[in-house]
Protein backbone atom coordinates (compact mmCIF):
# COMPACT_ATOMS: atom_id res chain seq x y z
CA UNK A 1 0.00 0.00 0.00
CA UNK A 2 2.78 2.44 1.00
CA UNK A 3 4.85 1.53 -2.04
CA UNK A 4 1.78 1.56 -4.27
CA UNK A 5 1.14 5.17 -3.29
CA UNK A 6 4.77 6.00 -4.11
CA UNK A 7 4.49 4.43 -7.58
CA UNK A 8 1.29 6.36 -8.23
CA UNK A 9 3.02 9.59 -7.18
CA UNK A 10 6.02 8.79 -9.40
CA UNK A 11 3.76 7.94 -12.35
CA UNK A 12 1.83 11.19 -12.02
CA UNK A 13 5.12 13.15 -11.88
CA UNK A 14 6.39 11.38 -15.01
CA UNK A 15 3.18 12.09 -16.88
CA UNK A 16 3.28 15.72 -15.82
CA UNK A 17 6.85 16.12 -17.10
CA UNK A 18 6.11 14.24 -20.33
CA UNK A 19 2.81 15.86 -21.27
CA UNK A 20 2.83 19.27 -19.59
CA UNK A 21 6.40 20.43 -18.94
CA UNK A 22 8.08 19.04 -22.07
CA UNK A 23 5.65 20.49 -24.67
CA UNK A 24 5.61 23.81 -22.82
CA UNK A 25 9.37 24.26 -22.66
CA UNK A 26 9.77 23.12 -26.29
CA UNK A 27 7.50 25.99 -27.26
CA UNK A 28 9.07 28.58 -24.98
CA UNK A 29 12.76 27.70 -24.90
CA UNK A 30 15.11 29.63 -27.17
CA UNK A 31 17.12 26.57 -28.17
CA UNK A 32 16.87 22.76 -28.01
CA UNK A 33 19.61 22.71 -25.37
CA UNK A 34 17.75 25.16 -23.15
CA UNK A 35 14.63 23.03 -23.53
CA UNK A 36 16.59 19.94 -22.44
CA UNK A 37 17.99 21.76 -19.41
CA UNK A 38 14.56 23.02 -18.41
CA UNK A 39 13.11 19.50 -18.61
CA UNK A 40 16.05 18.14 -16.61
CA UNK A 41 15.36 20.78 -13.96
CA UNK A 42 11.72 19.68 -13.83
CA UNK A 43 12.79 16.03 -13.54
CA UNK A 44 15.07 16.93 -10.64
CA UNK A 45 12.13 18.55 -8.82
CA UNK A 46 9.97 15.51 -9.59
CA UNK A 47 12.66 13.25 -8.13
CA UNK A 48 12.90 15.42 -5.00
CA UNK A 49 9.12 15.24 -4.60
CA UNK A 50 9.15 11.46 -5.00
CA UNK A 51 11.89 11.13 -2.39
CA UNK A 52 9.97 13.37 0.00
CA UNK A 53 6.93 11.11 -0.42
CA UNK A 54 8.98 7.93 0.08
CA UNK A 55 10.39 9.41 3.29
CA UNK A 56 6.97 10.53 4.46
CA UNK A 57 5.45 7.06 4.10
CA UNK A 58 8.61 5.62 5.74
CA UNK A 59 9.68 3.42 2.89
CA UNK A 60 13.21 4.75 3.17
CA UNK A 61 15.64 7.07 4.85
CA UNK A 62 18.50 8.62 2.88
CA UNK A 63 21.94 9.87 3.84
CA UNK A 64 23.41 11.48 0.72
CA UNK A 65 25.02 14.63 2.10
CA UNK A 66 28.35 13.82 0.42
CA UNK A 67 26.78 14.35 -2.99
CA UNK A 68 26.08 17.99 -2.17
CA UNK A 69 29.75 18.83 -2.75
CA UNK A 70 29.34 17.71 -6.37
CA UNK A 71 26.55 20.16 -7.09
CA UNK A 72 28.99 23.09 -7.20
CA UNK A 73 31.52 21.29 -9.41
CA UNK A 74 31.76 21.58 -13.17
CA UNK A 75 31.55 18.80 -15.69
CA UNK A 76 31.98 15.29 -14.33
CA UNK A 77 30.79 11.75 -14.96
CA UNK A 78 29.01 10.41 -11.90
CA UNK A 79 29.06 6.62 -11.91
CA UNK A 80 27.34 4.42 -9.37
CA UNK A 81 26.56 0.84 -8.56
CA UNK A 82 22.90 0.06 -9.15
CA UNK A 83 21.29 -1.95 -6.35
CA UNK A 84 17.72 -0.63 -6.65
CA UNK A 85 15.15 0.88 -8.95
CA UNK A 86 15.40 4.17 -7.04
CA UNK A 87 19.08 4.92 -7.67
CA UNK A 88 18.56 7.42 -10.47
CA UNK A 89 15.99 9.24 -8.32
CA UNK A 90 18.37 9.34 -5.34
CA UNK A 91 21.26 10.77 -7.37
CA UNK A 92 19.25 12.89 -9.79
CA UNK A 93 17.46 14.74 -6.99
CA UNK A 94 20.76 16.48 -6.15
CA UNK A 95 21.50 18.02 -9.54
CA UNK A 96 19.48 20.63 -11.47
CA UNK A 97 21.28 19.40 -14.58
CA UNK A 98 22.18 15.76 -15.06
CA UNK A 99 22.39 13.97 -18.38
CA UNK A 100 21.83 10.27 -18.18
CA UNK A 101 22.54 7.16 -20.23
CA UNK A 102 19.43 5.01 -20.24
CA UNK A 103 18.80 1.41 -21.17
CA UNK A 104 17.37 1.40 -24.68
CA UNK A 105 15.46 -1.84 -24.14
CA UNK A 106 13.84 -0.50 -21.01
CA UNK A 107 12.69 2.75 -22.63
CA UNK A 108 11.11 0.81 -25.49
CA UNK A 109 8.71 -0.71 -22.95
CA UNK A 110 7.85 2.57 -21.22
CA UNK A 111 6.15 4.92 -23.70
CA UNK A 112 5.30 7.60 -21.13
CA UNK A 113 8.73 7.60 -19.49
CA UNK A 114 10.29 7.42 -22.93
CA UNK A 115 8.61 10.70 -23.80
CA UNK A 116 10.11 12.42 -20.75
CA UNK A 117 13.49 10.81 -21.44
CA UNK A 118 13.54 12.14 -25.01
CA UNK A 119 12.49 15.61 -23.87
CA UNK A 120 15.34 15.64 -21.34
CA UNK A 121 17.80 14.66 -24.06
CA UNK A 122 18.95 11.51 -22.26
CA UNK A 123 21.18 9.22 -24.30
CA UNK A 124 20.23 5.63 -25.10
CA UNK A 125 22.90 3.01 -24.46
CA UNK A 126 22.70 1.30 -27.86
CA UNK A 127 24.34 4.03 -29.94
CA UNK A 128 28.00 2.95 -29.53
CA UNK A 129 30.59 5.52 -30.61
CA UNK A 130 28.01 8.21 -31.44
CA UNK A 131 26.71 8.03 -27.85
CA UNK A 132 30.28 8.51 -26.59
CA UNK A 133 30.76 11.51 -28.88
CA UNK A 134 27.39 13.00 -27.88
CA UNK A 135 28.08 12.63 -24.15
CA UNK A 136 31.63 13.96 -24.48
CA UNK A 137 30.37 17.06 -26.31
CA UNK A 138 27.92 17.77 -23.49
CA UNK A 139 30.63 17.40 -20.85
CA UNK A 140 32.88 19.78 -22.78
CA UNK A 141 30.02 22.29 -22.52
CA UNK A 142 30.12 21.91 -18.72
CA UNK A 143 27.27 19.46 -18.22
CA UNK A 144 27.19 16.53 -15.80
CA UNK A 145 26.48 12.93 -16.77
CA UNK A 146 25.20 9.97 -14.78
CA UNK A 147 26.25 6.46 -15.84
CA UNK A 148 25.51 3.10 -14.28
CA UNK A 149 28.43 1.12 -15.70
CA UNK A 150 26.75 -2.24 -15.12
CA UNK A 151 24.05 -1.14 -17.57
CA UNK A 152 21.29 -2.62 -15.43
CA UNK A 153 20.62 -3.25 -11.75
CA UNK A 154 23.41 -4.99 -9.84
CA UNK A 155 22.89 -8.68 -9.15
CA UNK A 156 22.34 -9.67 -5.52
CA UNK A 157 25.57 -10.21 -3.67
CA UNK A 158 27.92 -9.00 -6.41
CA UNK A 159 28.39 -6.52 -9.23
CA UNK A 160 27.50 -6.94 -12.86
CA UNK A 161 30.15 -6.60 -15.53
CA UNK A 162 31.32 -3.00 -15.77
CA UNK A 163 31.14 -1.69 -19.33
CA UNK A 164 33.77 0.71 -20.57
CA UNK A 165 31.49 3.49 -21.81
CA UNK A 166 32.14 5.83 -18.88
CA UNK A 167 35.90 5.53 -19.39
CA UNK A 168 35.59 6.18 -23.14
CA UNK A 169 33.49 9.27 -22.45
CA UNK A 170 35.97 10.51 -19.81
CA UNK A 171 38.89 10.04 -22.20
CA UNK A 172 37.04 11.77 -25.03
CA UNK A 173 35.97 14.75 -22.91
CA UNK A 174 38.68 15.12 -20.27
CA UNK A 175 35.99 15.09 -17.56
CA UNK A 176 36.74 13.16 -14.36
CA UNK A 177 34.83 10.12 -13.20
CA UNK A 178 33.35 10.36 -9.70
CA UNK A 179 32.54 6.95 -8.23
CA UNK A 180 29.49 6.94 -5.97
CA UNK A 181 28.54 3.96 -3.83
CA UNK A 182 24.91 3.22 -3.03
CA UNK A 183 24.18 1.03 -0.03
CA UNK A 184 20.65 -0.08 0.78
CA UNK A 185 19.69 -2.03 3.92
CA UNK A 186 17.49 -4.00 3.73
CA UNK A 187 17.73 -4.07 -0.03
CA UNK A 188 14.54 -3.22 -1.88
CA UNK A 189 13.46 -2.99 -5.52
CA UNK A 190 16.54 -4.93 -6.56
CA UNK A 191 17.31 -7.02 -9.61
CA UNK A 192 14.91 -9.89 -10.20
CA UNK A 193 12.41 -8.63 -7.61
CA UNK A 194 8.92 -7.44 -8.43
CA UNK A 195 8.15 -3.84 -7.57
CA UNK A 196 5.76 -4.81 -4.77
CA UNK A 197 8.24 -7.18 -3.07
CA UNK A 198 9.43 -4.81 -0.39
CA UNK A 199 10.24 -5.60 3.20
CA UNK A 200 7.67 -4.26 5.64
CA UNK A 201 10.09 -1.91 7.37
CA UNK A 202 12.13 1.06 6.28
CA UNK A 203 15.21 0.74 4.06
CA UNK A 204 18.21 2.93 4.80
CA UNK A 205 20.06 4.32 1.78
CA UNK A 206 23.61 5.62 2.08
CA UNK A 207 25.31 7.39 -0.81
CA UNK A 208 29.05 8.08 -0.60
CA UNK A 209 31.79 9.34 -2.89
CA UNK A 210 34.24 6.44 -3.02
CA UNK A 211 36.83 7.82 -5.41
CA UNK A 212 37.72 9.85 -8.46
CA UNK A 213 39.53 9.02 -11.66
CA UNK A 214 41.25 11.63 -13.81
CA UNK A 215 41.37 10.63 -17.50
CA UNK A 216 44.65 12.53 -17.96
CA UNK A 217 46.38 9.84 -15.89
CA UNK A 218 45.40 7.22 -18.50
CA UNK A 219 45.37 9.23 -21.69
CA UNK A 220 48.98 10.32 -21.24
CA UNK A 221 50.27 6.83 -20.47
CA UNK A 222 51.56 6.18 -23.99
CA UNK A 223 48.85 3.67 -24.88
CA UNK A 224 45.96 3.80 -27.32
CA UNK A 225 42.45 4.77 -26.26
CA UNK A 226 41.10 1.20 -26.13
CA UNK A 227 43.76 0.17 -23.62
CA UNK A 228 43.44 3.41 -21.64
CA UNK A 229 39.70 2.78 -21.35
CA UNK A 230 40.33 -0.77 -20.16
CA UNK A 231 42.78 0.37 -17.48
CA UNK A 232 40.50 3.14 -16.32
CA UNK A 233 37.58 0.71 -16.05
CA UNK A 234 39.74 -1.80 -14.15
CA UNK A 235 40.60 0.92 -11.64
CA UNK A 236 36.93 1.85 -11.36
CA UNK A 237 36.03 -1.75 -10.57
CA UNK A 238 38.84 -1.80 -8.00
CA UNK A 239 37.28 1.19 -6.21
CA UNK A 240 34.01 -0.69 -5.81
CA UNK A 241 35.65 -3.97 -4.80
CA UNK A 242 37.51 -2.16 -2.01
CA UNK A 243 34.29 -0.72 -0.61
CA UNK A 244 32.87 -2.83 2.24
CA UNK A 245 29.23 -3.87 2.34
CA UNK A 246 28.23 -2.43 -1.04
CA UNK A 247 27.63 -5.56 -3.08
CA UNK A 248 26.71 -8.03 -0.36
CA UNK A 249 23.13 -6.96 0.21
Amino acid sequence: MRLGSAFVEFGISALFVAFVVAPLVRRLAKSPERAELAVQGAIRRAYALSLAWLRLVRILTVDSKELEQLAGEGACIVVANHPTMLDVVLIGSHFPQMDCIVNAGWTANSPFLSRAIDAAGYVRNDAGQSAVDDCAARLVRGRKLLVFPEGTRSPWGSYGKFRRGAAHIALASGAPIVAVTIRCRPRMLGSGRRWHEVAGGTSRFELRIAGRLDPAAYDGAGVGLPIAARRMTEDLVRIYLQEPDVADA
Partner: protein
Amino acid sequence: MTETELLERVRSILVREFELDPGQVTSSARLVDDLDLDSIDGVTIVVRLEALLHVSITDEEIQAMTTVGDIVTALAARTDGTR
Protein backbone atom coordinates in the same frame (compact mmCIF):
# COMPACT_ATOMS: atom_id res chain seq x y z
CA MET B 1 46.05 -12.85 -49.59
CA THR B 2 44.94 -16.19 -48.10
CA GLU B 3 42.53 -16.50 -45.19
CA THR B 4 45.41 -17.73 -43.05
CA GLU B 5 47.33 -14.55 -43.82
CA LEU B 6 44.23 -12.45 -43.19
CA LEU B 7 43.74 -14.15 -39.82
CA GLU B 8 47.33 -13.26 -38.92
CA ARG B 9 46.71 -9.61 -39.84
CA VAL B 10 43.52 -9.48 -37.81
CA ARG B 11 45.25 -11.22 -34.89
CA SER B 12 48.09 -8.69 -34.94
CA ILE B 13 45.61 -5.80 -34.81
CA LEU B 14 43.59 -7.28 -31.95
CA VAL B 15 46.70 -8.16 -29.92
CA ARG B 16 48.26 -4.73 -30.40
CA GLU B 17 45.17 -2.58 -29.93
CA PHE B 18 43.51 -4.46 -27.06
CA GLU B 19 46.43 -6.16 -25.27
CA LEU B 20 45.01 -9.60 -26.00
CA ASP B 21 46.96 -12.83 -25.66
CA PRO B 22 47.73 -14.04 -29.21
CA GLY B 23 46.62 -17.54 -28.20
CA GLN B 24 43.15 -16.20 -27.46
CA VAL B 25 42.65 -14.82 -30.95
CA THR B 26 41.57 -17.88 -32.88
CA SER B 27 39.18 -18.04 -35.80
CA SER B 28 36.41 -19.34 -33.55
CA ALA B 29 36.99 -16.81 -30.74
CA ARG B 30 33.85 -14.78 -30.05
CA LEU B 31 34.46 -11.04 -30.19
CA VAL B 32 32.28 -10.14 -27.22
CA ASP B 33 32.14 -13.23 -25.02
CA ASP B 34 35.71 -14.47 -25.42
CA LEU B 35 37.72 -11.35 -26.29
CA ASP B 36 35.65 -8.78 -24.31
CA LEU B 37 35.35 -6.39 -27.24
CA ASP B 38 32.50 -3.90 -27.45
CA SER B 39 30.87 -1.69 -30.04
CA ILE B 40 33.39 1.12 -29.46
CA ASP B 41 36.25 -1.32 -30.02
CA GLY B 42 34.54 -2.21 -33.31
CA VAL B 43 35.23 1.32 -34.54
CA THR B 44 38.94 0.90 -33.77
CA ILE B 45 39.01 -2.44 -35.59
CA VAL B 46 37.42 -0.89 -38.69
CA VAL B 47 39.90 2.00 -38.75
CA ARG B 48 42.90 -0.31 -38.39
CA LEU B 49 41.68 -2.81 -40.99
CA GLU B 50 41.01 -0.06 -43.50
CA ALA B 51 44.50 1.36 -42.95
CA LEU B 52 46.22 -2.02 -43.12
CA LEU B 53 44.33 -3.73 -45.94
CA HIS B 54 42.81 -0.77 -47.82
CA VAL B 55 39.35 -2.34 -47.68
CA SER B 56 36.07 -0.67 -46.90
CA ILE B 57 34.15 -2.17 -43.98
CA THR B 58 31.43 -0.44 -42.01
CA ASP B 59 30.87 -0.17 -38.26
CA GLU B 60 27.48 -1.86 -38.78
CA GLU B 61 29.10 -4.84 -40.49
CA ILE B 62 31.55 -5.26 -37.63
CA GLN B 63 28.72 -5.04 -35.06
CA ALA B 64 26.93 -7.87 -36.87
CA MET B 65 29.97 -10.17 -36.69
CA THR B 66 30.26 -12.71 -33.90
CA THR B 67 33.70 -14.28 -34.25
CA VAL B 68 37.19 -13.45 -35.47
CA GLY B 69 36.48 -15.86 -38.33
CA ASP B 70 33.54 -13.69 -39.43
CA ILE B 71 35.92 -10.75 -39.85
CA VAL B 72 38.37 -12.88 -41.83
CA THR B 73 35.59 -14.19 -44.10
CA ALA B 74 34.34 -10.67 -44.78
CA LEU B 75 37.87 -9.49 -45.55
CA ALA B 76 38.49 -12.48 -47.82
CA ALA B 77 35.44 -11.58 -49.85
CA ARG B 78 36.81 -8.08 -50.31
CA THR B 79 40.41 -9.03 -51.02
CA ASP B 80 39.65 -12.13 -53.07
CA GLY B 81 41.19 -14.29 -50.34
CA THR B 82 41.64 -17.97 -51.06
CA ARG B 83 42.05 -20.90 -48.74
